[in-house]
């Protein structure tokens, strides 16, 4: 059973930072597309709903969800303890982190190798947290810290790397890989993906009706092959998860 408001309006509102290809991004015609969008559409469809997407900076997603500006977040939101204190998350994939560099720059085996460098991130993302953590370690080792520059959105951060105004960009592996292929010769991976983490759809706590509905719908999509088809379409097979208990 869907929450009554949703049953009435026949729409589900997803908050999303629609600026992180291939997970979610705007087509030049400003139509949302990407893995999360395809998945969101499919989930909505199997619930007999229409999905709408509300675009906002990443750091604003959870506040917006809590503010009831949307019903759920679908925006490659990692499942983390701190987040689970304020929201619920339904896992639907795994993600990885990566460091994006300019081609030819020396590879970085770990984040601490970025010591003393200027590194872009997007405000509120896990990369920021990981870089902060690396800085603690660097400080303990007496090495110069990483200079973290947090941008409100992905394009800004990416372009600073492109123009050499930063040395690296800490971002989800999926996005990093997208740009390495999409804009050939401009970017290079700093190394293999690190930090594998479950990723989920964010929900307000105690929104049990929706939680159950979406969990059920996700199971259906996994069973009928839609789920796999979406990840295949975007060439992200490594991020798929198995149905619970299956």
């Amino acid at each position, binding site marked *: 059973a869907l929450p009554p408001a949703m049953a009435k309006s026949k729409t589900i509102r997803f908050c999303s930072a629609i*600026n992180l*290809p291939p997970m979610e991004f*705007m087509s030049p*015609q400003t139509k949302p597309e990407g893995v999360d969008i395809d998945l969101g559409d499919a989930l909505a469809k199997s619930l007999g709903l229409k999905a709408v997407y509300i675009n906002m900076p990443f750091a604003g997603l959870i506040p917006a969800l*809590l503010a009831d500006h949307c019903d759920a977040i679908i925006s490659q939101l990692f499942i983390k303890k701190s987040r689970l204190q304020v929201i619920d998350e339904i896992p639907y994939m795994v993600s990885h982190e990566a460091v994006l560099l300019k081609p030819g720059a020396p590879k970085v085996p770990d984040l601490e190798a970025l010591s003393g460098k200027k590194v872009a991130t997007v405000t509120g993302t896990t990369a920021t947290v990981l870089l902060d953590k690396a800085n603690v370690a660097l400080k303990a080792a007496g090495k110069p810290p990483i200079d973290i520059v947090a941008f409100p959105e992905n394009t800004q951060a990416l372009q600073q790397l492109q123009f050499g105004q930063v040395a690296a960009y800490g971002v989800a592996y999926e996005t990093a890989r997208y740009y390495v292929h999409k804009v050939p010769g401009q970017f290079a991976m700093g190394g293999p993906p690190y930090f594998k983490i479950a990723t989920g759809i964010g929900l307000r706590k105690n929104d049990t009706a929706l939680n159950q509905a979406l969990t059920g719908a996700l199971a259906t999509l996994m069973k009928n092959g839609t789920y796999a088809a979406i990840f295949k379409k975007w060439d992200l097979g490594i991020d798929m998860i198995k149905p619970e208990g299956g």
Partner: protein
Amino acid sequence: MHFDWPYFWHQLLEPDGAFLQGLWLTILISVGGQVIGLVIGLPMALARRSASVFLMWPARFYIFLMRGTPLLVQIVFIYTGLAAAGILRFHDITAGPFTLSGNVQAGILALGLNEGAYMAEIFRAGIDAVDRGQTEAAKSLGMVPGQILRFVVLPQALRIILLPIGNQFNIMLKNSTLVSVIGVSEMLLVTETINSATFRTFELYSVLALYFLALTSIWGGVMRYVEWRMDRGAVRGDAAVIGMLQGEHI
């Protein structure tokens, strides 16, 4: 430097539908914010001038708050902060085929509330600038304060503040870009979105700047025309102009 002229001309002269929608939203938001500002500004100005402390102090506080904090903070506060505290939530409003989404509402409201404080100060200055003798003459004829305001003081104040209000709207047009931070797809956010796919940053932002220059220049032209009409009107006591500004016949 490499400047992609064909792309630039294409964006400038045959913009995407999305960009034109952004332009439309920029105008809608600016006009909406200005209207709210005007609607708030007048009572706020009257309250600010009131002898009653229960009107004067709240108005004063409102103006202080809105003018003392950044508009960007106000926008986020109104959209996210108020909702987070459960005070005010914005839901889409649908009227027939037309939908006004929550963040657009919040954007217009935030711009309008901010503008209201500036409008209040402009209205106040305009009312204060009307010769006291006008009020006294009206009083001596037995008119009550509401009538004096409506038929004598406001029509004259309006003449005085028309240009300051026009200038404020010019600022409003530019400030409307700030609602991009709450995801309103006005021209700036559309440009950013296109940029995230094409990376023609310089060309795209040049086009965006030109569109804003066009908007503000057109508005500037309107203002100059009004100013010119008013100057003529002031000299000749031009009934039509004064009627136009007065907006209402007694």
